[in-house]
């Protein structure tokens, strides 16, 4: 379980996270919604140890990420997919995927290679194993980013606005893969996903829970159907305002006039 307890993060005088608490249990798909600057990405970066905390505590299966030794262990349990892909440009697609499983998890090369090729095939990139990231489209790069994370066999998959840098067509192709991934979880033992996104409709379809952040504070943490219920999440003016602007197509109909 990922447990975030009263986390505070400041950049200079600006408080980005202001006492945020939440949990992600194995098999859950939790979506973090919120406008830009609400602290969603920072929260992900605190969980994978790319930012240090100014207060509170984060544990991944009991491992405290503030402790360097425990962080190294925690990083073997989770894997991150980044907004701007963050692939290694000097390595082939295959090597991008196999690097950490081989070096960090010390798994045999042949086994990792096989898994990487299978993952690539599953996202429609079987022919791209020997290409370099620079030769791929954005959508293809993000699919490689997803394969790279999955090759770690993570218990927790952290997805940081993974479609924000993509055009609608590429967004669709990446979301289709993530949707398959989320529904494949048998609701218990599978990979848990913590998903920062602006894709409200998609979040609604795949999430078990939705968390809403506003100016660094967690406003609600509700099961998905309650989040979109008129007497649930939508009872909050801030959330109603956000949803009406983010996804005018779908949830508007349910917002009481």
């Amino acid at each position: 379980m990922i447990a975030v307890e009263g986390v505070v993060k400041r950049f200079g005088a600006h408080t980005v996270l202001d006492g945020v608490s939440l949990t992600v249990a194995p098999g859950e798909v939790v979506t973090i919604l919120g406008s830009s600057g609400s602290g969603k990405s920072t929260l992900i970066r605190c969980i994978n140890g790319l930012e240090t905390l100014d207060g509170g505590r984060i544990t991944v299966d009991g491992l405290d990420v503030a402790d360097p030794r425990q962080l190294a262990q925690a990083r073997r349990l989770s894997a991150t997919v980044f907004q701007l892909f963050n692939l290694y440009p000097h390595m082939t697609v295959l090597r991008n995927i196999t690097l950490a499983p081989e070096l960090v998890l010390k798994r045999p090369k042949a086994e990792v290679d096989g898994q990487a090729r299978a993952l690539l095939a599953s996202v429609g990139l079987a022919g791209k194993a020997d290409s370099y990231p620079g030769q791929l489209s954005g959508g293809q790069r993000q699919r490689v980013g997803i394969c790279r994370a999955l090759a770690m066999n993570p218990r927790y998959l952290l997805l940081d606005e993974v479609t924000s840098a993509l055009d609608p067509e590429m967004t669709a192709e990446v979301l289709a893969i993530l949707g398959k991934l989320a529904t494949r979880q048998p609701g218990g033992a599978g990979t848990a996903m913590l998903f920062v996104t602006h894709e409200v409709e998609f979040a609604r379809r795949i999430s078990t829970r939705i968390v809403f952040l506003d100016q660094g504070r967690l406003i609600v943490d509700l099961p998905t159907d309650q989040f979109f219920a008129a007497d649930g999440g939508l009872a909050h003016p801030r959330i109603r305002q956000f949803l009406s602007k983010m996804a005018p197509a779908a949830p508007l109909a349910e917002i009481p006039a």
Partner: protein
Amino acid sequence: MRHAGFTWHDGALLAQGLGVSLGLFAGTFLIGLVLGSAAAVLRHFRVPTLGTLLHTGLELLRNSPVLVQLFLVFFGVPALLHQPLTPVFAAGLTLSANTAAFVYFIAVAGLDAVGRDQVEAARAFGLSRVQLVRHILGPQALAFAVAPLVGLAVNQLQVTSLVSVIGVVDLTKAGDILNLRTLRPFAVWTLVGVLYFAAAKTLTLLGNRWERRLRAHAAPLGL
């Protein structure tokens, strides 16, 4: 022996001098490469006191003449420590440190050129610092740094001629000896110059080949 003509022995003297020059260059450049890169990595990871200390020291070395450094080491240090240094040792020490200073600044720039995003990805995936340097930072920084390093190598090869001043019998000193004996400065210094040119040109060609090979690998970096 006044106005004596050239003999076969002179060829041997020059060859030996060339050998000393090349050996001194190769040894000190290699040491400088290792030390300068190591210092750059320390700086990259912001190792507190050591990083700043190295930066200051190497900055001093880069911004003062090699000849002055050579005199300081060969004449100054023995006077301070009451312990004489051999010319070859003083030359090796000075040139290694001087090369390290230039390598350091090239390597720092190369490391800084590697995208921060990849470093974060590698860290989030649990790579150790050593693995990060070896697999992510090193290869890409090298691709950025190879051209300036080849230029530096050609320059440092020629800088070795300064060690003749403290009595190391390198190519320049061999030319000096030959000149004093034959009194044919034009012929002698032309010959010495041609030998330096041949060595530097060979080094450039080798460097360019290495650079092309590295760049072929780094093509996706958009260099």
